[in-house]
Each structure stands twice: as C-alpha cells, then as structure tokens.
C-alpha cells in the first residue's frame, strides 16, 4: 500500500510541479498548437511532393499518423527528462534523495501522469489528421489503437526515465530533452520508412519503443487487430522495460555517487 501511495503521489506531484513555470491556459494552448504545427509542417512537405508528381496521395496519411504518434515524445521524453532539470534548478533534488520513500515507485511514478497527458496529445492529433488532412479512420480497430497508444506512451515514458536517469550526471538535462525529442522524427519511421535511412544507422531505430508503436498504430488504423500486432507490442514492451530498469540503475548509481562524494547538485 505504501509503495502504491508513493507511486501515485510521485505521479501527481511531478505533473503539478510543471505548473510552477507553465500557466494552465498556456499548457492547453501548447497541447493544441504543437501537434498541429508539427503535423502540418511535414504534411505540407509531403503535399509538395504530391503536387510535383513525386509521391502518391497515401503519403499524407502516412505522415499525419506518424507525426500524431510522435507528439507523445513531448510528454514522455521532453517533460519526463525535464523533471530531472527542475529537480536540479529548483533545489528539490536534496529533498527527493533525503526522503526514506522506496526509490522505485518514486522514480517510475514521476513519469506516469505524462503517459496519460501524452495519450491526450495523440488523441488531439488524430482529430487533426481526420478533419484537416482527411485521413481515413473508417477501418480502425479502436481497441487495438487505444492499447497501442497506451503502451507506446508507457514505454516511451520508460525511455524518458532512462535518459532522465542518465542526465542526472549533467548540468543541463534539458539539452538531452531537446535532442531526444527531435531525433525520434528521424529514426522512428514517423515520416518515412526506417529502411529509407542509411543502412549503418538503421539499427538505432529499434532502440526506441516509438518505432514499434508507430508501426503498430498505422496497422491498427488500417484495421489490424490486437492479435495481428501482438508481436510488435511485445517487442516494444521489452525495449520499454529494459529502458526503465536501466534508468533506475542510473538514478540509484547517481544517488550513490552523490552521497559518497557529497556533491549532490554538482555531480
């Protein structure tokens, strides 16, 4: 019971904490503007190719769905890594490490509200995809899509915890937040298939849970059932859990070094 309480309070506090620097109306505006502008940019690039006869019209749906899934990264990567930044900047890191609370629910819980926040962002993006860019959701297996979006958000939050745990060792974790939020657009098949990347770097795509999530999302929208996409979801869960475990190891190891050397925020 105590572990659950720590998990939930950690989740709620980490979400509330972001409103120390972000007004709720601004949060809402960001939620509506960011997905639209990111998706629009790449869809118009795709339409440029269509109007010049260099691509078929299918590219619009491909790009719109890929970017709708990718907006998760703003919540599950940027915001989750940013928790580490704010622990350092706002002086709350000593308090977090001084508490006798069990570290695992404390560490994992802080990312969890961002999972649901990310799902909301994806839902908003799907609305844009349908009503602004005419993407057909008529064949969608709704249950499969909901499960895909939830598991992608959960595993990506795990990846955010991994980078967040790693970036405890650096002065500006926000730099990592920026890098990892954007490079996903290159590696995860949001705008073009992974096999269009140069061969030597294609393997990088498969360390990101989002790569499996985008693929599974496109299949669910095309009508694939949960059973059809189960292998993809399984791979994604494995990558996600490995990320959480590694992130936790980084966090504990940082705590150990910080206590041993007495250089908490300087580590």
């Amino acid at each position: 019971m105590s572990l659950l309480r720590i998990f939930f309070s950690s989740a709620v506090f980490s979400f509330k904490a972001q409103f120390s620097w972000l007004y709720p109306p601004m949060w809402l505006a960001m939620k509506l503007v960011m997905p639209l502008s990111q998706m629009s940019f790449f869809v118009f690039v795709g339409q440029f190719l269509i109007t010049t006869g260099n691509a078929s019209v299918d590219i619009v749906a491909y790009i719109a769905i890929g970017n709708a899934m990718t907006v998760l990264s703003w919540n599950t990567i940027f915001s989750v890594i940013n928790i580490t930044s704010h622990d350092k900047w706002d002086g709350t890191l000593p308090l977090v490490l001084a508490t006798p609370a069990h570290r695992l629910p404390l560490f994992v819980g802080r990312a969890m509200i961002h999972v649901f926040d990310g799902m909301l962002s994806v839902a908003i993006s799907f609305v844009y995809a349908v009503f602004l860019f005419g993407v057909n959701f008529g064949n969608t297996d709704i249950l499969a899509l909901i499960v895909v979006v939830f598991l992608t958000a959960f595993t990506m939050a795990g990846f955010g915890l991994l980078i967040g745990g790693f970036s405890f060792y650096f002065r500006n974790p926000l730099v990592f937040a920026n890098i990892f939020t954007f490079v996903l657009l290159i590696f995860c098949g949001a705008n073009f298939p992974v096999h269009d990347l140069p061969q030597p770097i294609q393997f990088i795509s498969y360390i990101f849970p989002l790569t499996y999530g985008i693929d599974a999302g496109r299949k669910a929208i095309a009508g694939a059932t949960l059973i059809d996409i189960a292998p993809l979801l399984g791979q994604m869960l494995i990558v996600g859990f490995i990320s959480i475990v590694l992130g936790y190891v980084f966090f504990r190891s940082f705590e150990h070094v910080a206590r041993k050397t007495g250089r908490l925020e300087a580590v």
Partner: protein
Amino acid sequence: MPQTLRVIYSAFRMAMLHWMADPQWVIPNVIAPFVFTFVALTLFKEATGPFGLYAVLGGGMMGMWGNTLYSSGFAISFEKWQGTLEEVVATPSNLLHVIAGKSVSNALFGLVNMMAILLIASLVFRVSLDVANPVLFALSLVLTLLSVSALGLIFASAFVLTRSAQVFTNGLEFPIYVISGSMFPIGLLPFWVHPASYILGPTWGIEAIRIAAGQENVSLTFWINVSVMLLITLAYVAIAAFLFKKVETKSRRDGTLGQA
C-alpha cells in the same frame, strides 16, 4: 563611442561571454532545424526538381529563426533566473538597446547555424550548393537575418511580462516554419493562412534567397521580395520599440517584474 552603441556593444559582449561559459545551449537551437532538414532531404531523396534547394535553404532559414526565437525567449528568462532582470530594467539605458545587443549576438549565431546546416547537407546528402548569384544571395541572407532578429525583438518584449517565455518559444517555433513556407511553396497552405504568411518577413526573405540561389540574372520578383521584407522589418522595429516602452513602463509601475 555614442552611448547607444556602447550599450549595444556591452549587451553583445555579455551575451557572448554567457555563451562561452555554457556553450551546450547551442544544441537546442540547432537540433530542430537540423532534424527537419534531414527528414525533408530523406523525403526528397528520390524526387526530381528543386527540392534539395528548398530543403537546405529552408533548413538554414529555420536555423536562423530557431536561434533567434530561443535567444529572445531566454534573453529575458535568463535574467529572471539569475535575478538580474530588475537591475537591467532599472539602468538608465534603454531596454531595447540592451536586447538589441543580445539580438546581434543571436543573429551571429543564427548565421553560423545556417552555415552549419548548409555544410552538413552538402557533405552528408551531397546537395549541390552552387549559388547562381552569390552577391545577391549574401545580401538577401543578411537582410533576412535582420528581419528575423527584428521579429525576435517583438517577441522578446512580450516575454518580459510572462514566466512562460520558454513555452512560447517552443510553441512559436514550428508555426513560423509552417506559415513562412520555409520548405514548401506557401501556395500549398490554406488561403486563410496566407495573410499571416505575408506579414512575416522570413516568408519574403526565403523566397528572395531561393531566387538568388537559382538565377544569375534575378527577376523583378527578387527585388519586390527584398523591398517588402525591408518594409516589414522596419515595421517590426517600430512595433518592438513601442512595445518595449509600454512593457517597461508597465513593469516599473506594477512592480512585479521578477514575479511575472
């Protein structure tokens, strides 16, 4: 040295010193334009037409804009975090001149940012960077940079009044990429977006840059684009000066500068 220039130079020097003290801040400024250019070049890989030019020059323009916007936002936020904003505003120097000095340093980084994107595109994607009219290309580039910086000044004035400058910065980055048609013709945008495109200096700037890159003897359209951009830039500067005065007066009167 005239006092205005001395203030601008001091602010410029401080901004450079801050950057040298923590150079990793350049990463957030360059990462999005670089990624967007990479994605566009991969999408355009098999296409025939002027796509490479659109992607690379558009990416460079985005680099300038991203840098300017981040720097404008952080110019104010940084002073707030350090607790120095009150002192900066309380000095007898005009706040606009202080921010202008910071903007000049940002513009310099913006230019370096664009060059880095051009270089990477050229080396990694083998995009030809042959410029048909180098003189007019350089002219349109510098004028676009000034226009982008002037637009940044307007945002910087608004950022004094909010503690969400960082959020604005993130939120405004992509819409400008879309509305200015940085990587595609603005004709593809819905007609109701066009007025927003036309009041942005970078929209005219990127078009002028593309023309200078592609035509040795530029058409009249080039000069029209440059002239309109100049007019818009002047308007930006006038608006920024007005806003800075208003914002400064309001923040002094309310006494809530650091808390905003």
